């Protein structure tokens, strides 16, 4: 490929652990940027949380997406959701969502909550997938459980992951933990994530950095962009195609 990433000024070490990584071995994972989690009338809005907190990472993520698309990096978007017949919805998950007044599968302002194909389940326009980018639909918080994500990553020869999305402490953290156990070298971006509770956002990022980087590293999108080095060949920009 045409560029390398790293070393990125990250916490607690210069990312990645092996110095630099070719963009062809790196994927950008955009987790659950769905209307249900960051749009008006969606699931998180219905539960009474402030969606400005979950929307906070959208501008930086949109800018980073433009950057990595220019490098030809693999981009993967995930969506949390369930089949219309709810056959992949664990009963305890349904029960808990009902307790908090936003039952999964019930009608909301953006269609049936967290159901595949409904308006609320779609990714918001700011970071919408382009044709050809990978979409992973997941029934849980983690993007590896009951999905083909691991297969897709291995098929593309991906060893390093850069994580964005919402929410930091729930779906992004669960996915980062799953990826870390599978041996992927992970970087989570503080300005491209967000949580329904700001202190959970901060604590989740802090947890990553303990014990020498127990799940990987934390940086910002600017740090990643600054650590991008063109290789010998000119970068493949869409406008040059």
């Amino acid at each position, binding site marked *: 490929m045409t560029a390398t990433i790293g070393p990125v000024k990250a916490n607690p070490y210069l990312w990645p652990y*092996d110095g630099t990584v070719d963009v062809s071995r790196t994927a950008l994972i955009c987790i659950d940027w769905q209307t249900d989690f960051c749009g008006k009338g969606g699931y998180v809005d219905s539960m009474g949380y402030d969606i400005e907190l979950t929307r906070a990472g959208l501008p930086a993520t949109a800018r980073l997406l433009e950057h990595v698309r220019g490098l030809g990096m693999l981009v993967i978007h995930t969506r949390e959701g369930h089949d219309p017949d709810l056959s992949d919805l664990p009963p305890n998950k349904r029960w*808990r*969502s009902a*307790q908090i007044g936003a039952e999964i599968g019930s009608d909301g302002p953006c269609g049936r909550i967290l159901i595949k194909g409904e308006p609320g389940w779609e990714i918001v326009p700011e970071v919408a997938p382009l044709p050809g980018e990978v979409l992973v639909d997941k029934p849980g918080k983690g993007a590896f459980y009951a999905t083909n994500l691991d297969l897709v990553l291995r098929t593309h020869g991906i060893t390093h992951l850069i994580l964005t999305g919402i929410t930091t402490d729930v779906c992004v953290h669960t996915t980062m933990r799953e990826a870390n156990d599978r041996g992927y*070298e992970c970087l989570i971006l503080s300005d491209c994530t967000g949580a329904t509770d700001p202190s*959970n956002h901060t604590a989740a990022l802090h*947890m990553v950095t303990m014990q020498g980087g*127990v799940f990987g590293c934390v940086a910002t999108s600017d740090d990643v962009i600054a650590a991008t080095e063109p290789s010998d060949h000119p970068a493949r920009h869409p406008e040059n195609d």
Partner: protein
Amino acid sequence: MPTVDAKPSPFTFELDNVALLVIDMQRDFLLPGGFGESLGNDVSQLARTIEPLAALMAVWRAHNLPIIHTREGHLPDLSDCPPSKLARGGIGEQGAFGRILIRGEYGHDIVDELAPLDGELVVDKPGKGAFYATDLSDILEKLNAKKLVVTGVTTEVCVHTTVREANDRGYDCLVPADCVGSYFPEFQRVGLEMIAAQGGIFGWVADSPTLIAALSSQEQK
């Protein structure tokens, strides 16, 4: 049906659908001089879990309920240790209790106070989560366990990762706060808060005396 007063709501289970998970109560993490302490951690924060956990395990055994112990560790040739994990240091090196986090070494085994009894299952895991690359799912299916009481160390790392994995797989998880420990009091607090947030997004939180009282009020199985 035992009902435990818990956050964010009461947690119920049946004696034939519950299992106790005891995560990584290993010498390398808990003992002074071990791997955990060598990283600069305060191991006394973990040691306080031993007594309540021993009491909970005694009651659990008295009711003939299943206990599953886990151990984080790797094969002596490190063939199951991802390079990125190895690069962060420690694993496989010589420590105070043998090679650090290597299966078969003294430090890799569970502390004496909580040693598994014959017939109790021990799951060896290469990662933080107890489901990835292990047969825990099959074990729970055979036991007909749908409700898990998750204990051990550390709260925000291996306990949290396992609870998240279990939750996605449809298990109801109860975490007794006094039976899980973190080296960092702040992570203990927010780790427990995150579990019970948003209507119990990952599960329920209680304490072990409440759980024991709920269990003891039942007829012995």
